[in-house]
């Protein structure tokens, strides 16, 4: 029984068909990537899955539930966590408070009016665990907005993890990173996927990252999926190579 099933999803913005008859499935525990040139519609697809936009037609079924029409906060509660391409954290809260907000939300304590946050021992232990996992424990008292970009991405992931998601959507997790930062992020993602037992769907431009993590790949082009399969199949697919032909060393990049 697939964890996520997207069937014939369509979305147009004015004259632009951003999502064109997209269908894909994800099995529990699968690590899957969506690749494609800029503007192919990767972020839009994420927005459709998480309820930020409403599709024109099609279905999204997650864990047996139809997601269409649900608001983002409800979809999140069903078990989908998301990180963002541009860092989208809470700048004037500390790293600790960032994750703490998410943890409290997950455990439905956000509206609690009188007990001080420091008195929630169990929940604060969760926060600690997540911060350790993403490697931000030493920087927990730094303001989110003052963290380095790479650390902000870690915080992003921490926020997504705090929701104990079954499915984690990562939108270009290594965008704008140096090779060292990219490397550590890849390691981090793999470690998190294993530690928290999440199914992963991520978008990326960096092929090294894609081939380093993904067990399956979907190629998006002008809003539609042109190829799906295992990494090696995709690498050998002539259609896919054509799409990326414009890029330097496209072929060589595909040699994993």
């Amino acid at each position, binding site marked *: 029984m697939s964890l996520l099933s997207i069937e014939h999803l369509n979305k147009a913005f004015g004259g632009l068909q951003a999502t064109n008859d997209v269908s894909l499935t994800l099995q529990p525990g699968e690590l899957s990537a969506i690749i494609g040139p800029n503007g192919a519609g990767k972020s839009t697809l994420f927005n459709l899955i*998480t309820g930020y936009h409403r599709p024109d037609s099609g279905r999204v079924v997650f864990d047996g539930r139809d997601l269409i029409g649900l*608001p*983002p*906060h409800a979809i*999140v*509660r069903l078990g989908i966590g*998301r990180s*963002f391409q541009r860092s*989208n*954290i*809470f*700048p*004037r*809260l*500390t790293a600790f*408070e*960032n994750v*703490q*907000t*998410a943890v*409290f*939300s*997950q455990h439905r*304590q*956000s*509206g*609690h*009016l*009188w*007990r*001080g*946050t*420091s008195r*929630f021992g169990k929940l604060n232990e969760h926060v600690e665990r997540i911060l350790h996992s993403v490697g931000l424990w030493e920087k927990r008292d730094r*303001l989110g907005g003052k963290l380095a970009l790479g650390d902000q991405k870690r915080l992003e992931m921490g*926020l997504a993890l*705090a*929701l104990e998601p079954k499915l984690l959507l990562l939108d270009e997790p290594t965008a704008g990173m140096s090779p060292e930062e990219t490397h550590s992020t890849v390691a981090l993602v793999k470690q998190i996927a294993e530690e928290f037992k999440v199914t992963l769907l991520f978008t990326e431009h960096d092929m090294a990252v894609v081939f380093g993590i993904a067990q399956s790949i979907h190629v998006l082009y002008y809003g539609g999926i042109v190829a799906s399969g295992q990494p090696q199949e995709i690498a050998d697919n002539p259609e896919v190579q054509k799409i990326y032909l414009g890029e330097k060393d496209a072929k060589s990049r595909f040699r994993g």
Partner: protein
Amino acid sequence: MQKLRSIPTWVWGLMVAVVLAGLSVVLSEFQLVLASQMLIAALFAMSLNIILGFGGMVHFGHAAFYGLGAYTVAILTKNYNVPLWVALPLAPVVSALVGAVVGWFCVRRVRLYFSILTLAFGQILYVIVLSTAADFTGGDNGIHGIPVPEIIVSAQNYYLFTLLVFALCYVVLYILTKAPFILTLRAIRENAERAQFIGLDVRRHQLATFIIGSAFAGIAGGLMAILNRFVGPDMLFWTTSSEPLLGSLMGGMFSLAGPAVGAALLLGLHLFISQYTEFWPTVLGILTIIVVLVAPSGLVGLSNRYLGVARAEE
């Protein structure tokens, strides 16, 4: 400095409370009335700041809820002979109920639209009190001669009463600011969109904030009704909303005590400067510009920086 920081908060609070209470025997009658006004202004500003500073929602119609609380006390005690100890707790209830209705509409819009909508509702309530329901509310005249129980008639006793109510409200608000509710509110303020993606129902949370702020404004209004022994529709006019706004700005929007200090200081400054010149609005304007450009975190922010205390938003 280290020693100062290690003193627990409740001890600080107690010391301040004792000093303030002690003032009641030291100050002259006029000064006690002024001090009572300062406490009320402080409470009014704190109530706004829950919405403004912690919630990040710029609210121009807050005076309406202040006025509603005042009119509740006035109408109940004067026209229906309800005893004060029943009428005063009803003031925040009325303000909260109306705040719930108004807030429900307002939180559906963001930023600029939210602010203008609060202005619109505030003015609607003002006109209702002023003319539409004039028979009930006394219209432009307001309601004069509000009866005050014997025990708090003297300036000294009234001051102590106000201080007691203020202290209770402060403690409640303080507990609130340490609770998950305010943490969540601050996160929503920082990034409402992201907050949705952590599973938070942003609108519901903002509505709850709106209601809480309105309720405390109602208490401040009720206290003012008793102090002045009259209420007027001006209390709901939008310019009255600007007083707690500026007080919060000057005192420091990101703390609980900041707006209280700012509003009280502003009141004192107003009276002081008005003795020497008619140009108080000019002074106020210049002061506001200085604060906005130089110290956006207000006085409290400045003093925190000076003491080396790091608070999140500063």
